[in-house]
């Protein structure tokens, strides 16, 4: 090897005459790279307070701090907590950015903070949108003053990117029967996850529990989904039954407020909470052996439940567990109430309903079906005979538009009931459905199927007319999409004026263009352009514009004592008790949500209330 020379270094003498490369910081500031991982930025409008950043932080540098000025909105999945970063602990790894479901948390290219007080190292991360005082435009910014409270505007560094996020924004697709095939029969549309799909879908859940606050019944969603992801459906079922005794029904028709609140739904798709519940309910053949429920010693107390809908079923389940003797009265031939007659077979088959009801019956709850209160048994007799009465009668009367010749129309509920548990309705070839809610969608889709069955191969049409335009149509987006996919025609923004009848036969529906649906106070008060008319041709009109309750079975002296709220709902106290002692109520007659899971939530309250009042009588 060459030993080298002592003269060779002199060749580098040229460097003496070159410009120094040293950066004269801070007079020549160095601009950090675009992806720089510096101090945090957080968009408070987007941030949901889910706390995933705090959970993933390897150094526990992030704590969620409650902000009293922010109003929590559980139904939108918005908490009033925002991340606070302790820069004594932060290692600037940016995992918090990659886990942030709304993408509100980002890192900036600011990195300087020097202070002799350690408590100044805590930062409630904000951004220039919110904190104009500390985020300064380039002109006013000086690197010599740079700190947590002197930062540069528009100085984003590492930001969230869904491609590299630590969560999976896309849902495991739910296998469904294709629209072309499902419109021909009442086959169940949603096939359901298999074990592998359910596990995969369940493993997307980030356990932030925003859903649990949004759920009216506060199910332990995060826990039961975690159990599914760990392949323990038994444990999952136990968790579900703590708050909801009808998972097979709810797993199919729940309004899934949880999914609207899911933090993943902001930039991706929500965890399929409802389908996962359905998976658990379907995958377990026999609830009773799995749940190993402990039923309290019989108390000897007798409770009557009027109406075997979701609320009635839940209240009987919770009371039965407490050892009370529960009797349920219902005029239908089976349990489920509105669930039995409302949701069409392609959504909620009868077997799925009976699975939940048989389980509740197996706990000792007595069901008296085909028994109409007020006719077969008197309301006052029930109130006398039982120690507590729960009123879960729901809304059972379909409303009519009351336009000219409206008596020639068919109402939604009798139509649905006849098709689900009766013999089926003979339908026309050109059906018009009035309404834009979920029930109207059900009616239209059912009518379409009946047409396919009754007139195979012939040309048939199903049309919908709704006051509301697409954006404010009350039905869920998903439902509207499914309905469209099956080939149903929509006529949004039209109001019914008259049913045209010629020679005793329905010829069509005369409509007028809607000006507005709600008034300035946001109340329902539609106005029309009277001159803009349209005749929709058809030979059958079905009205699906809403339902009301039937209190006719309550004798006048009692009914007068029953107090109502301003919105015509039965008034109940914190125990679910009405103004009549011993009489409790819940579900659609009490709340404005008009759905199964809210009825379950009411039932939970009432069951606790009934139990508490009965116990106080014991003492």
């Amino acid at each position: 090897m060459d030993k080298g020379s002592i003269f060779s270094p002199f060749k580098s003498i040229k460097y003496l005459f070159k410009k120094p490369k040293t950066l004269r910081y801070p007079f020549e500031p160095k601009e950090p790279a675009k992806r720089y991982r510096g101090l945090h930025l957080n968009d408070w409008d987007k941030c949901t307070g889910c706390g995933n950043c705090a959970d993933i932080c390897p150094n526990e540098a992030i704590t969620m701090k409650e902000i009293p000025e922010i109003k929590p909105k559980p139904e939108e999945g918005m908490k009033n907590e925002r991340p606070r970063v302790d820069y004594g602990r932060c290692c600037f790894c940016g995992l918090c950015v990659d886990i942030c479901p709304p993408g509100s948390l980002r890192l900036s290219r600011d990195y300087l903070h020097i202070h002799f007080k350690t408590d100044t190292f805590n930062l409630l991360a904000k951004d220039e949108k919110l904190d104009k005082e500390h985020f300064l435009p380039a002109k006013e910014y000086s690197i010599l003053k740079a700190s947590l409270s002197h930062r540069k505007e528009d100085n984003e560094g590492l930001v969230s990117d869904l491609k590299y996020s630590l969560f999976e924004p896309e849902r495991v697709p739910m296998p469904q029967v294709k629209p072309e095939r499902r419109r021909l029969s009442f086959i169940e549309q949603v096939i359901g996850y298999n074990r592998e799909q359910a596990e995969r879908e369940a493993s997307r859940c980030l356990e932030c529990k925003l859903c649990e606050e949004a759920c009216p019944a506060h199910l332990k969603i995060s826990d039961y989904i975690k159990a599914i992801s760990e392949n323990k459906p038994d444990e999952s079922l136990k968790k579900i039954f703590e708050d909801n005794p009808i998972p097979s029904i709810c797993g199919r028709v729940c309004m899934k407020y949880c999914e609207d609140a899911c933090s993943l739904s902001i930039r991706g798709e929500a965890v399929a909470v409802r389908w996962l519940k359905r998976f658990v309910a379907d995958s377990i053949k026999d609830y009773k052996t799995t749940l190993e429920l402990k039923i309290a010693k019989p108390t000897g107390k007798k409770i009557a439940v009027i109406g075997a809908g979701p609320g009635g079923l839940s209240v009987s389940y919770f009371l039965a567990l407490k050892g009370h003797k529960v009797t349920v009265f219902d005029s239908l031939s089976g349990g489920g109430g509105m669930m039995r007659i409302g949701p069409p077979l392609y959504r909620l088959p009868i077997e799925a309903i009976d699975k939940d009801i048989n389980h509740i019956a197996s706990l000792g709850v007595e069901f008296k079906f085909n028994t109409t209160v007020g006719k077969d048994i008197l309301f006052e007799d029930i109130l006398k005979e039982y120690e507590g009465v729960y009123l879960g009668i729901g809304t059972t009367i379909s409303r009519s538009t009351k336009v000219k010749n409206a008596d020639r129309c068919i109402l939604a509920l009798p139509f649905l009931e006849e098709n689900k548990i009766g013999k089926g309705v003979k339908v026309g070839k050109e059906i018009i459905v009035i309404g834009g809610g979920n029930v109207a969608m059900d009616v239209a889709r059912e009518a379409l199927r009946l047409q396919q069955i009754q007139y195979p191969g012939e040309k048939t049409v199903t049309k919908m007319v709704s006051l509301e335009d697409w954006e404010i149509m009350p039905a869920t987006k998903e439902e509207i999409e499914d309905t469209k996919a099956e080939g149903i025609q929509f006529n949004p923004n039209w109001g019914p004026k008259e049913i045209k009848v010629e020679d005793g036969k329905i010829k069509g529906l005369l409509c007028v263009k809607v000006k507005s649906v709600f008034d300035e106070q946001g109340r329902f008060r539609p106005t029309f352009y009277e001159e803009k008319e349209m005749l929709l041709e058809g030979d059958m009109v079905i009205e699906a514009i809403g339902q009301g309750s039937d209190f006719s079975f309550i004798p006048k002296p009692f009914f007068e004592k029953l107090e109502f709220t301003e919105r015509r709902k039965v008034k109940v106290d914190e125990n679910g008790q009405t103004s009549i002692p011993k009489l409790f109520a819940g579900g659609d007659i009490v709340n404005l949500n008009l759905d199964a899971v809210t009825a379950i939530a009411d039932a939970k309250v009432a069951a606790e209330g009934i139990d508490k009042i009965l116990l106080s009588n014991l003492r």
Partner: protein
Amino acid sequence: MRELELYFGPQHLGMVGNFSITLKVEGDRILEAQANPGYLHRGFEKLMEYRTWIQNFPMVCRINVIEPDSMEMVYAMAVEKLAGIEVPERANYIRTIVLELSRVSSHLFGLWAYANMLGFDTVAQWAMYHRDLILDLFEELTGGRVYHIYIWPGGVRRDFPEGFKDKIVNTLHSIGSCIPDYDNTFFNNRLFYERAKGIGKITQKEAKELGATGQVLRATGEKFDIRKVEPYAVYDKVDFEIPTREDGDAYSRIWVIRDEMIESVHMIFKLLDAMPEGSVYNKVPNPFKWKIPKGEAYVRVESSRGELGLYMVSNGEDKPYRVHFRTPSYTHGLVILEKLLKNASIADVGNIMISLYVIAPEIDR
């Protein structure tokens, strides 16, 4: 002559970091040397048992400050092996490029330390400056200059930014254009030869017996390189040479470092040309629910200092059950250093130690 006990470090000019050596000397001659690690013990291996699989990822890089990428790489490889995760082809190319860039930056840092220790301050400053240019590249790619937190299980964290290929090429060309200056000023400088030749000499047999790897072993003539022995990433798809020297002394080791840098730069150019398009990250499971099946894995990569291994055991939980790093500096800094210091002169302690390229944080993990 009287025997003395001398403490070399942890606060000592020419010391590699928080590390010390107790020397038993007689006059200028070292009778016995004892390396004392522990000043920088942060308990990483234990800490990792308490953090989830993804939470460990930002931490492993801290075990070696100088070359964090190889640490990230072994961790990612071990997790991928245990969990059976595939890595996209483009990600493997990017990983290889990042590893080679970090090898260059690490060697430049080593050159700085060595030249600085010998008193060649000019070269030391050049090396530091050129390392900084590579750190600029890392900053642009990963958002961090020192701790890149970039190679993670499933691939890499972000794709190349726009125009990044050209930036790498330009930077490496500008560094490469200075090689003649480096050679003139340092490698072909007679003073370097006189100062390093025959110092800290180890035979191939001894090196193998004591577990030496990397340039310590390659400087004795053995062509041993994990990149060839057990190729990972895309090292089996790219053509490169393993530079060796025969003498096993400090002089040979530093020359190996120099040749390796040049080889790495050539490799990066080849990789940039062959790099396919496509995704760079296969999503790992949800970090809050991620459990890795029971099993154990030993993976190894060729870091800039030698064989870097990681033994990791999973108990089927969301955290590793046991993590153990086999770091090259542990062998070189404790076993081989103690052996080479025997009978050396006090003036050569730094020379030998830095020529072995001992990184103190890597010993204490």
